[in-house]
């Protein structure tokens, strides 16, 4: 891929009205002795002529109060922002001004040139891609419902809100131009306001009138729904939302910020930086995937699995027991396929122990993990080893 001229990009992405003096393109290094208001010809070719001219360095209080978000000059003098940049060990190629922009929610500043919406869209795609490939490559046999749950646990709104708190990002009480750029700026939801109709918890997986006749089981969710398997919220009409800016929750604003930071990092520092960022902050989080399972008929499922894979049918055998006629018996039951033990479970009744054993056996099947973790995106890196085929399993057990 050709090297991106990011410095040139940053000029057009930032507002044409304000020119931060800290960002100087390399072609103009020799012209530094010229006056600050001189507009180099390269920039003129890319940006339209501004009407107002460059704003003065120190803005007046009245002017600041009128702005929806802090001016770009404020970023270089914010201690909070610099501390955040250092704390997250972000590469120096990511400017402070861009970091300041990622902290501005669209509800604070509707202009897409000053808020984090463009970055957030890109960052959302990147996070979804890297997380899903990590989960699927690490546990190739995981059922799709559990994959969705794991995605939600790693990069869902609640996880990203927790990450924002862990990073020590504080939220401003109300957005404005006078706010320190190191705060997360968003317009809060008015108290006791109607949050709108709650989205339905269950998504139909059968083709019927409610789903528009296009659903074919849970796999349809990968096509029609978002990365967590939830129905995508319809985009609000731009005409319908008039001048009133709707508030967002702190969770939503934190989610947008984290996604925006990822997107900005990718644009300014490149793929390797964003991958290491993902590894350090998202992939390193501990999740017990075994706790995400919930089986309704585990014995039936295990029986179908053994039939499908050609193993001998599973038989529950009592490995050990104690206190059968007492008030607190303990049965340890193992599920055997021939002489091989598939799973073991303990319970205070035979039924409970049998079901636990079947659950353990099914988890032992689904949580298979290859010895070496290789993800498809590592082939983008230079000097990648030849791609070895990975396990693609037949899918969930169908009863």
């Amino acid at each position, binding site marked *: 891929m050709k090297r991106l001229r990011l410095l040139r990009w940053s000029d057009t992405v930032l507002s044409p009205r304000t020119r931060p003096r800290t960002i100087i393109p390399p072609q103009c290094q020799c012209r530094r002795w010229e006056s600050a208001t001189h507009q180099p010809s390269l920039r003129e070719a890319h940006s339209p002529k501004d009407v107002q001219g460059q704003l003065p360095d120190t803005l007046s209080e009245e002017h600041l109060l009128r702005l929806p978000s802090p001016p770009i000059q404020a970023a270089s003098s914010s201690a909070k922002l610099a501390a955040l940049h250092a704390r997250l060990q972000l590469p120096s190629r990511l400017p402070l001004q861009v970091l300041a922009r990622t902290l501005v929610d669209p509800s604070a500043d509707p202009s897409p040139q000053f808020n984090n919406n463009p970055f957030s869209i890109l960052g959302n795609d990147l996070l979804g891609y890297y997380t899903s490939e990590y989960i699927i490559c690490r546990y190739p046999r995981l059922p799709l419902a559990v994959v969705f749950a794991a995605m939600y646990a790693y990069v869902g709104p609640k996880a990203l809100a927790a990450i924002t708190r862990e990073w020590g990002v504080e939220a401003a009480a109300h957005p404005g131009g006078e706010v320190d750029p190191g705060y997360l700026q968003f317009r809060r939801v008015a108290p006791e306001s109607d949050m709108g109709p709650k989205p339905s918890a269950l998504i139909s997986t059968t083709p019927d009138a409610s789903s528009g006749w296009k659903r074919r089981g849970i796999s349809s969710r990968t096509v029609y729904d978002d990365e967590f398997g939830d129905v995508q919220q319809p985009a609000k009409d731009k005409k319908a939302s008039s001048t009133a800016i709707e508030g967002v929750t702190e969770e939503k604003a934190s989610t947008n910020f984290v996604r925006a930071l990822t997107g900005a990092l990718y644009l300014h520092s490149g793929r390797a930086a964003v991958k290491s960022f993902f590894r350090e902050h998202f992939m390193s989080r501990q999740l017990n995937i075994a706790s995400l399972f919930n089986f309704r008929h585990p014995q039936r499922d295990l029986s179908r699995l053994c039939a499908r894979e050609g193993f001998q049918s599973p*038989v529950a055998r009592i490995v050990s027991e104690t206190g059968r006629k007492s008030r607190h018996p303990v049965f340890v039951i193992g599920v055997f396929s021939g002489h091989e033990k598939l799973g073991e479970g303990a319970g205070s009744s035979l039924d409970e122990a049998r079901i636990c054993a079947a*659950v353990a056996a099914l988890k032992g099947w689904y*949580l298979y993990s290859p010895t070496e973790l290789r993800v498809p995106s590592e082939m983008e890196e230079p000097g990648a080893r030849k791609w070895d085929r990975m396990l693609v399993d037949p899918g969930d057990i169908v009863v």
Partner: protein
Amino acid sequence: MKTFSAPCVVRSVIWPQSHSCNNLLALISRRHQSSYRRTRSRLNIKPDPSFLPSKTEPHDHIIYNPPPSPPNVYHTPTIFLPKTDKRRQLYEEAAGKNSRLAATSSTPPPELPPPVRPTYQKRYHLTQEDMEEMRRLRRKDPTEWSANKLAKKFDTSSIFVAFVTEGIAKEKREQQKQVTEIVKSRWGVKRRTAREDRALRKERWGRDA
């Protein structure tokens, strides 16, 4: 003269799992011997051989005695491993070594534990005519020809009878539901709570970690 005291409680004392310090002190202070020395020697119980150094191993070694816990679900059983996985080969080699050792020490191969329910062979002895007969009887009189009665007549399980006669006696199902509702409405608070708790517990079994 040797005093014969029978401290039955002390000699065969069982140390329960949920032992608190207070209970322990109470047991010790409740001695049945005349002197502290005798009490102490009575309370001296020999630990399980697995906690003592092995008689067959003369040198220092590690005693591996983990607490009882369910096996790790992240460990995949050998037959669940795909054919291309390297661990399959390693496990089979290890199993081969163990079996060779077992052969040399001449111990019999371990038997499988007893099954929970007696094992049975699936029989496919029913023909289409039998199944049609089953449906005919069910249609004729669902109250008389219940699933259990049909299962006994055709020497099969009631689950199979339910598969074959699915959708035939819908009125009986509705009637049975009503009967169940009436019975449940007569339950008191305790019974209802106990039943609901049982249902919640059963649901939780499928979510075991």
